[in-house]
């Protein structure tokens, strides 16, 4: 992995404010256009941003998980089952989803995180498939391959979020909370510990950082965020099935993370904002959309190794070099 971990993506305070202003403008787009569909895309961007944010926390300790969709699925099913079977409110289902996903991550994290690099990628891939297959074996819980339809909409304090713009506001707040959490981790003592483990686990261990505990903590936080995302996703879309959480969903989160910037704070958000609406721009060319998507992916990897979030820095460096 790249070594420039500690360098913040936004060099100057001015750049930072500009970035925040840009994000706020982007977030307001659906209100300008007034289109329900744009609100829907906004919701999808928020959900993708949250899930990818969770994946980023795991990436900060140097691990790339292909089981992220399974944790989104654990959260989704936890919440759906609590709400539909036990008639608990969504406000119980949401935190429960995060707790259950985090707990599962804690339990399997210890043996799992001994593996590194490609091996970790592969085992998490196998785990994601295992999750899907096992869920299919228990139709009583998962609805089997027909899934569970008619999941109740999000309800907060007796108010049902029926319209897309209402859900959008809620997901924006959730996304802001996740990003704030990421920012706190990043700029706190924990962030420095994460970075040290990412850069060189052996060195980190010898300088007194408990590598295993640090990685486990990152894995639990990341997976808990995924679980919460799953809960919101299930209640918004209204349908869950084990197939929804197949490894292709994990792959799409990984693609967003890497495109946005694997180690940058804003990477997951930038990746989600860029890639979630992208197919919509390409839909005009139904046949070619996946090809164009693939080409863009390879081009970003090739020419922006720091991801899109590293773009300003890269431009700044180019300018310096020219001088």
């Amino acid at each position, binding site marked *: 992995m790249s070594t420039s971990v500690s360098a913040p993506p936004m060099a100057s305070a001015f750049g930072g404010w500009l970035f925040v202003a840009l994000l706020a403008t982007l977030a307001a787009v659906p209100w300008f256009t007034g289109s329900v569909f744009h609100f829907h895309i906004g919701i999808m961007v928020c959900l993708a941003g949250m899930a990818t944010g969770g994946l980023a926390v795991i990436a900060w300790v140097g691990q790339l998980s292909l089981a992220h969709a399974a944790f989104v699925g654990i959260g989704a099913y936890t919440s759906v089952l609590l709400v539909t079977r036990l008639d608990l409110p969504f406000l119980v289902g949401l935190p429960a989803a995060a707790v259950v996903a985090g707990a599962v991550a804690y339990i399997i994290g210890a043996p799992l995180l001994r593996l590194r*690099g*490609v091996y970790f990628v592969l*085992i998490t891939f196998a785990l994601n498939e295992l999750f899907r297959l096992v869920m299919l074996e228990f139709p009583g819980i998962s609805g089997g391959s027909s899934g569970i339809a008619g999941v109740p909409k999000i309800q907060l304090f007796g108010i049902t979020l029926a319209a897309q713009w209402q859900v959008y506001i809620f997901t924006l707040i959730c996304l802001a909370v996740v990003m704030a959490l990421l920012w706190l981790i990043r700029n706190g003592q924990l962030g420095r510990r994460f970075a040290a483990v990412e850069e060189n686990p052996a060195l980190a261990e010898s300088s007194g950082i408990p590598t295993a505990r640090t990685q486990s903590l990152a894995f639990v936080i990341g997976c808990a965020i995924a679980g919460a995302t799953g809960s919101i996703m299930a209640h918004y879309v209204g349908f869950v099935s084990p197939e929804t959480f197949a490894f292709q969903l994990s792959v799409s989160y990984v693609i967003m993370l890497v495109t946005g910037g694997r180690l940058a704070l804003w990477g997951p958000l930038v990746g989600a904002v860029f890639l979630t609406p992208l197919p919509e721009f390409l839909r005009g060319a139904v*046949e070619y959309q*996946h090809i164009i998507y*693939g*080409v863009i992916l*390879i081009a970003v*990897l090739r020419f922006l190794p720091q991801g899109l979030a590293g773009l300003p820095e890269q431009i700044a460096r180019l300018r310096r070099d020219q001088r």
Partner: protein
Amino acid sequence: MSFLIAQSIINGVILGTLYLMMAIGFTLAFGVMRIVNFAHGEFYMIGAFLALIGVNWLGLPFPLALALTAALAILLGALVERIVFRPFRADELSGMIASLGLAMILQHAALIIFGPDPQSFPALVSGVYRLGDLIVPQSRALTLGVGVVILLAFYVFLMHTRMGRALRALVQDQEVAAIYGVRLEIMYPLGLGLGVALAAVAGGLMAPLFGVSPFIGATPLLKAFIVVILGGLGSIPGAALAAILLGLIESLTSSFVSASAADIVTFALVVVVLLIRPAGLLGRGEA
């Protein structure tokens, strides 16, 4: 009952060898390039289509079509190495994700060119060989025979030619190989080209068995993944052992428990092996 066990073992060994054909190119590409190639299945698919074009459209005999497929696939692999993978040599994860993009491009290009419907591939032989109660379909026996010949030829190439030795040196240790004069600029494209060619030949060879459509790449990719994880990344003998094991597990569990149990057992085994021996059954310790 004992008849069913014997039959299942025969089925399993045949299936395992087919899976080895599907996986061997994948493990070679990882060994040389350090790339987890998600586009592997798509090269299998392309091989099936190339063989189909050779046999159905150009009217070539099957062996010639297969040879042409292999030659074209080596070129394609070298080209892909040059355009897509070369920039990511130092970065396994980026290379892996680039291969995902490549897989998307290849599959949907095939969809546009050939359409989604399965294409008909003429059967080469039909009927069964019988050994008492035991049955071996002739089509599988033929595929198996040709597959084993190709695998042996590949083995001889790897063990007893200069290029093969250079490739093996690369699989073992790239820096040392470079010091000893292995020319990376030739060996990298060649390595991926061979990996792609093996996938494509497997696709062409199995086209009469498993059919041809733009979506046939998913199965070989999944099987290659499992075989390579079980056997150890980059270990060719490990892949052979793991493929036979996978074939036997699938066949026996499917015959005596159920098909869905077979998949769960397989993935559970993968997880257990990775936890106990991360480098796989015969892989080198590295994790």
